[in-house]
């Protein structure tokens, strides 16, 4: 296992701090895990419960939706293939998004192919993780998503804004704009953009980007993430070329 980055710790500590000061301890955040593999479900539940969340596990789409109609969780972690439904997770995500537009949804899957990722994100998921993700990484991600929700709910105080030319990154709300137009990025993508834009001109290799995004990905997946990020910016501005490939080394942000 890789050594966790300093930034990860910082995020976790900040999450815990906000819990301690801003919210009632009794009002624990609920996380729903929809995963048909009981051992994994229990492991995730145990890891998240240790972070102070109330975790509920569901094995399939039907039981999960029944429960969600009664009460929405604060965050949902959904496996794509559920029991006998190969893409049951996508359907569940769509139904859940219909119930709530703001609820953070994280896809978790053994499948890491491009198509699954794109499909998942089109359905309005906030992040997409492979099951390789370690428990601390998962916890960091969950904390970050909650933090974003909190930041969004807070009235617009002078937030920490990172500006790089046309790019503006609201670090707290984890929102990105290009020429003032919001660019919707997944959490992983946001962290990659943030890591690149923070030090323009510096080459970030794949490992550094993975660390920043709190994921373990193979080279091809990093490449496809970068591609997708570019595409998202290009759909706002056809002339976008701020992310440069430095072959054999990594990527850098140029202004």
């Amino acid at each position, binding site marked *: 296992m890789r050594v966790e980055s300093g930034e990860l710790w910082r995020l976790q500590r900040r999450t815990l701090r906000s819990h301690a000061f801003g919210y009632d301890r009794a009002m624990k955040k609920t996380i729903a895990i929809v995963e048909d593999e009981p051992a994994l479900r229990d492991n995730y539940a145990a890891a998240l419960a240790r972070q102070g969340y109330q975790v509920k596990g569901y094995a399939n789409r039907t039981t999960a939706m029944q429960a969600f109609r009664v009460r929405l969780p604060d965050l949902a972690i959904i496996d794509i293939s559920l029991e006998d439904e190969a893409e049951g997770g996508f359907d569940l995500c769509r139904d859940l998004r219909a119930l709530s537009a703001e609820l953070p949804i994280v896809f978790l899957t053994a499948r890491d192919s491009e198509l699954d990722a794109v499909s998942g994100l089109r359905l309005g998921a906030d992040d997409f993780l492979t099951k390789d993700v370690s428990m601390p990484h998962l916890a960091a991600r969950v904390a970050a998503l909650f933090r974003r929700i909190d930041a969004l709910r807070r009235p617009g105080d002078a937030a920490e804004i990172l500006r790089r030319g046309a790019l503006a990154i609201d670090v707290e709300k984890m929102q990105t704009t290009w020429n003032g137009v919001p660019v919707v990025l997944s959490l992983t993508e946001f962290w990659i953009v943030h890591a690149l834009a923070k030090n323009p001109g510096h080459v970030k290799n794949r490992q550094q980007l993975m660390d920043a995004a709190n994921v373990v990905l193979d080279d091809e997946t990093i490449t496809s993430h970068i591609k997708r990020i570019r595409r998202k910016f290009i759909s706002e501005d056809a002339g976008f070329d701020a992310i440069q490939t430095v072959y*054999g080394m990594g990527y850098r942000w140029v202004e």
Partner: protein
Amino acid sequence: MSIRSQLLIVGLSTLVLPWAGCQYARELEFALRGSQEQALSASAATVANALSAEPQRVFRQGSDVQPFDPGRGDLYVFPLGRQPLLDGYRDDWGIGQDPVPLPNPSLAGAGTPRSRIQAGATERYVYLYVEVDDAHFEPEPSDVLKARVSFDRVDLLLQRPDGTLDAFFFATSAPGLIEAQYLATSDDGATRVDAEPRIQAFWLQTRGGYTLEARVPLSMVGGRLWLTPRDGPKSPITQELPALEHLEGGRLFFAPQGLQDLLATFVRAGTRATVIDANGLIFGSAGSLDLSGNDAQRGNLGQAWFRRLIAADNSRLPEQSQAPDRLVGPQITQALAGRADTVWLRTGRREVALLSAAAPITVDGITRGAVVLEQAGDQLIGLRDRALSRLFYLTLAATAVAVAFVSGYATWIGARIARLQAAADTAVGNDGRIRLTMPESSHADEIGALARSFERMLARLQEHTQYLRTLGGKLSHELRTPLTIVRSSLDNLESEGLREDQRDFVRRAREGGQRLASILSALGAAARVEESIKQAERVNFDFRELLESAVAGYQSAFPQARIELQAPTDACHLRGAPDLLVQMLDKLVENAVDFCPAGGTIAITLARHAGEYRLIVANDGPPIPEGLLPRLFESLFEQRVGHDEKPHFGLGLYIVRLIAEFHGGRTAVSNRAEASGAEFTVSLPII
């Protein structure tokens, strides 16, 4: 032996058709010969019957049939077409035969030199020609009656038409035109020599003797005549006449005048009719043989060899009689014995046979002679040849068509099989990919069935290969969930708080899990690359810039090896997927680093070469065994052992090839000279 030549031989079996045609033609020729024999035989019998009705026009002397015996001095008198000149030469007689030796047995005695005689007759004269071998010429003296006087002379003993004998002699003091002389008794009883002016002769001196050409009026000649040359010193002249009954031979056999005209009325063109007497001597003949064959046919080369092919064998036939004065042969013998007969004769020309039909002429129950009709055997053959040669050519053409068709068919079959074979040979490509469709499989025949069998076999092979190919990906996917369970459990365990000694076990378990994860990742790598190749976008970029950037990265990533780059100084534009090319480069460099000893050099070279970029990654280190070289770029082929513990699934170089092929390029690997290392070459076409 190829199917084509086998079928060609089968096709050649249709040559039996023209062969059968030849056989048929031969049969037909025999049949035609038979009918020609019958026709000619019937004609001969008709002519013979007609002549039998008028024996007086055929035979000169009543019913006197004597056997002809040239050995005893019998003479055949050739009919002469025109009056010859008395000049001692017989060139103007127009007779092909040479004079026959004259035996004169009854009168022979001492002083008879060797001589040869020939007789001929016109309507008024009998001509006699005699050649005498007498080297020493003794001229006639002025008084021949002087005792013991001798000189060269030719005695002529003549039977008059009334049966009496007359003796004459020819002698001369100088060669030239002379008259016959005879000894007469004067009224006074003395013997004197008289000339007979009606009998004239020409005495011609030759190198070995002399020749005498004599002319006797036909009115003086009866049935017999004897001519005896005398050598002067040995034979004195006498006046004594021998007794007729003691004489032998000397009979003259005349061809009746007018018989030729009579015969001419019987013969058709191309047929020769000959009448012979009981001795086989020719009385007369009419018509001429056409032995030249069919002129039109001769002009036709094809028919000529066709004739040679089917002609009946003539070589064993008896030969045509060549004697001009008489006919011989089995048919003549039969006819003179009273039986009609036909026979085929050989002629001077090989391919032309002569048909000779002989029929007896019977007068009052006695066979007096025979009619012989002769006809060239190919009278009808020309007609038949035209029909048969057409048949022959038709069957030959049919054979040619059949052979051509069979040959074409065999070529087609052979080509189909060759196509199938070529497809079968290349069905499984070097990259392990299997082509499922075979040519010919849409045909309903056996080759189609074979092709379909191949397709089924390949489909099953494909399934199997597909299973093997996807096994890695499936395995990596299926093992991922349990691995995740293990790793997440370890995460939880660690978070629960462990004793120091327990941490070591967890750490080891985590390391094992990490290795397992990297194995699974490697197993699924090829599938992921294939996936990303499918989605790759092509852009224009500078390959040199990419290389320089990538090599700089490698230099920092692999400090243990010296990585050098040689590239053109100007931009190397290429259209392709730079991400994939970098990935390809990664694999090549990783591979080179694996086999490069510490401190060794990895040389990366980019060069333009005949319309393509040639990228060479060469590393120091051990050479690759020759047997492995051609298979190195195959999927899951790895027999090389690097000097690290990383898992090798032989996918790295396979990915290199996939990416090179995506760019329309090729890959190659070779060992450097002196076993100093390996060299991987990727050729990419410049687009």
